[in-house]
């Protein structure tokens, strides 16, 4: 099977979408935890 420009673009696009989704999930979890930590620290500060 010969790899054409269209196939390469399509594969690259799918790869980027998958990468973006994975990155999104990882960042969502990481930043979510960080936010909870900040909220907890601020709550302790005013209690």
């Amino acid at each position, binding site marked *: 099977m010969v790899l054409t420009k269209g196939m390469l*673009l399509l594969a690259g696009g*799918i790869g980027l979408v998958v990468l973006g989704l994975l990155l999104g999930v990882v960042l969502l979890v990481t930043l979510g935890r960080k936010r909870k930590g900040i909220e907890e620290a601020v709550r302790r500060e*005013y209690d």
Partner: protein
Amino acid sequence: MALPFVLEGSAMLFYSAENLMKKFFKTESAQFQGGCPLEEKNTPVCIFGKSHFSTELIETGRKTQYNITIDMKKAEQMFPFCGDALCSRGKGGAMATVLEDGVSAIPREVLGDDLVDVRPLGQQGGFSNLFRAHKVGLDVDVVIKRVQGRFQGRLDQRGEARIMTALRHQYLPRIYDLKLASDGFCYTIMEFVEGCTLREYVRREGALDQKLTLKWVRQLCEVTEYMHTRRPPIIHSDLKPENVMITPQGDICVIDFNASLEAREEGQEAIGASSGFAAPEQYNLPPQRFPAGSPLLPVVRAAQGYGKVTPRTDLYAIGALGYYMLTGYDPAVWCAGVTPLTDYDIQLGDAFRQVLERAMAPKQSERFSSAGEMLRALNNLSRLDARYRRWVRQTRIAGLCVGLCLSLGVLGILLGLRTLEEENRGNYLALVEQGSTLRQQQQYAQSQQVLLEAVALDQSRIEAYSQLAALLYQQGEYQQAIDLLEGVEFHKADAMTQEEFEAAQGQIRYLEGNCFYRLEQYQQALESYQLAVWLTPDLPEYQRELAICYARTGNQKLAEETVAVMESIGAKQEDLALTRGEIAYAYGEYDQALPQLMAAAQGAGDPAVMGRAYIQAANCCMELGRTDEEIAVLEEARDRLGAASNSVQTQMLSEALLRKANENPQQRQELYQQALSLLEELLAKGYVTFTVEQNTAVVLQVLDRYEEAEALLMEMEQRYPGDYRVPMRLALLYGDLEGSRETDQRDYSRMAECWSEARRLYQAAGVQDSEMIRLEEMVAQLEQLGWDLEEGGGA
């Protein structure tokens, strides 16, 4: 009788002494004593909180004299920018005497039997007298509030009560009753709030920690939001430590709505301001009201442009109250420079400080838009924290990265799909072009394969179907061509114009019509031609076929009308001759048709017209029984058409030679040989149709070349698995072969097997075939001779 009396000052009032007398004390007879001569009556008088002045009530018959003494030292402390003016005429104090009608006692109709133990309350409202009493019915202590006669006319006596009655909130006092008594005063019986004022609390306990401050500021926001969201919204406009009660439960209770206003879109003019807790817009009054040299003028001028009182005015006061709770100090008036909270040595979170500072912004537009927003900010202090803001920045960057990845990915996918589509389109057109070239080179098998690949790439485009149908038609595979086109819905390719698409569709229908015509299904052919003509009305060949088809289906009038149309659109003479010949042929007038067709064939430059005319001319000869003339016509056709487009004529010539061979036993071998060489020529150039292969097998059989015939039929059996004609031919072949042997060497088992298969498929096909009948007769003869083909062909 002199009755010590203390006014609870709630606000600084912007009125001159004269206006003060007129508006508040309802008298023109104002007298100033102790250094305040009458000519100075236009000097602004500032009434401050209760700590700054006191009054003495002296009953003198029908008149009541108020002696108002202003404590200059305290006034200077709390309101320094007025101090000079006051001191300049003060000698340490100023006194005004006001005469007014006497104050009557609380009427019995107000107290009834329900209110007992009435006594003056230690603190007085700014515009009212307060009494404490016990409400027997509910067994609760209440406050009786009477708007003082002096303020009659300035305030709607029911105003505060009306506002309060409409408000029901846990941080507001309850109103039990509202009575307009015969003495003209309005008495409000309201909940007695236990506890102390915020001022007293802070004085006693000192500055508060930020936890308690946060709690009470939140409560202030809650109650303020509640007031601001009424219809119409209510602005307290005088929130200050004296007007905030701290209950024994540790909650706040906002009191004193004398200065409250109904919010309007254009804002309300202030009626007063409390030093330190009043927002700049509460001082924003026309400077003309103040005489030159007035100590208030600098403040009033500084307040110009800060707008009018709106719900945001209360937010400034809430911020100032928070400031007071945290520091224990009243904030300075905004234009005198409020000491920043950061200058105090207090524990204060950055986020909370930001909220208070924003609430105390001099410009209304810079404050929170509502108490609700401020409350949300207080409930989400973490969002104002520096760490949270850093987190937001990180989240934005992360979101940007993810968004970029996804956007680029989607873009790549879209671009990839588009590029793939373009590549497919390019491949498709290249295959169609290749298939067309191969077809022109008579490499039919390769052409078909290539075109089928093109169809597999895009099953909705018309070009490959068009070429494939033309190829099948050219090979005489009419039914296959019809099956190919049946049920296919074509879509216009982007690269095609609508006209091109319609032309291609017309061509497809034309080819379909040709196929139906060849299969003598004239009604279907007519429908296809009509469609082709509707799509492309200007092509003479479409009109020609339509005319011929009309003739074939008995519509002579329509056929002649169509010929007339052909003439009108400039059809060539050979086309017209061919059409007329075909019409004559359709009506069985072969003698008349033949010269027309020959004229068309010999005059035509288009190989298609030429080939068609020769074919029909040969058919005319066949119908007239002129086999030799038929052969001559077909040979002429072969010569003129050339190898590229004479396949059908060659096949017909071979069939004509076979017919002649059957008619002339003497020349049979020679004619068979000629027919065989023509058929082999056709097979060699890829014109592999069922008829050609079958005829080849028959000729090989009659020339006693059984093995070659058998091999060819075996190949055909593979190629046409459900066709009864192949096993039928094999059965005939084996019957003929065994018949050529000695009786004792004959074995009809293979014939029996093929005959059985042919009979099964023949019955399933439901057709009539003379060759099959011949085979059955042959089998019957063999059975009569003792060969039992039903039982496997044994003797």
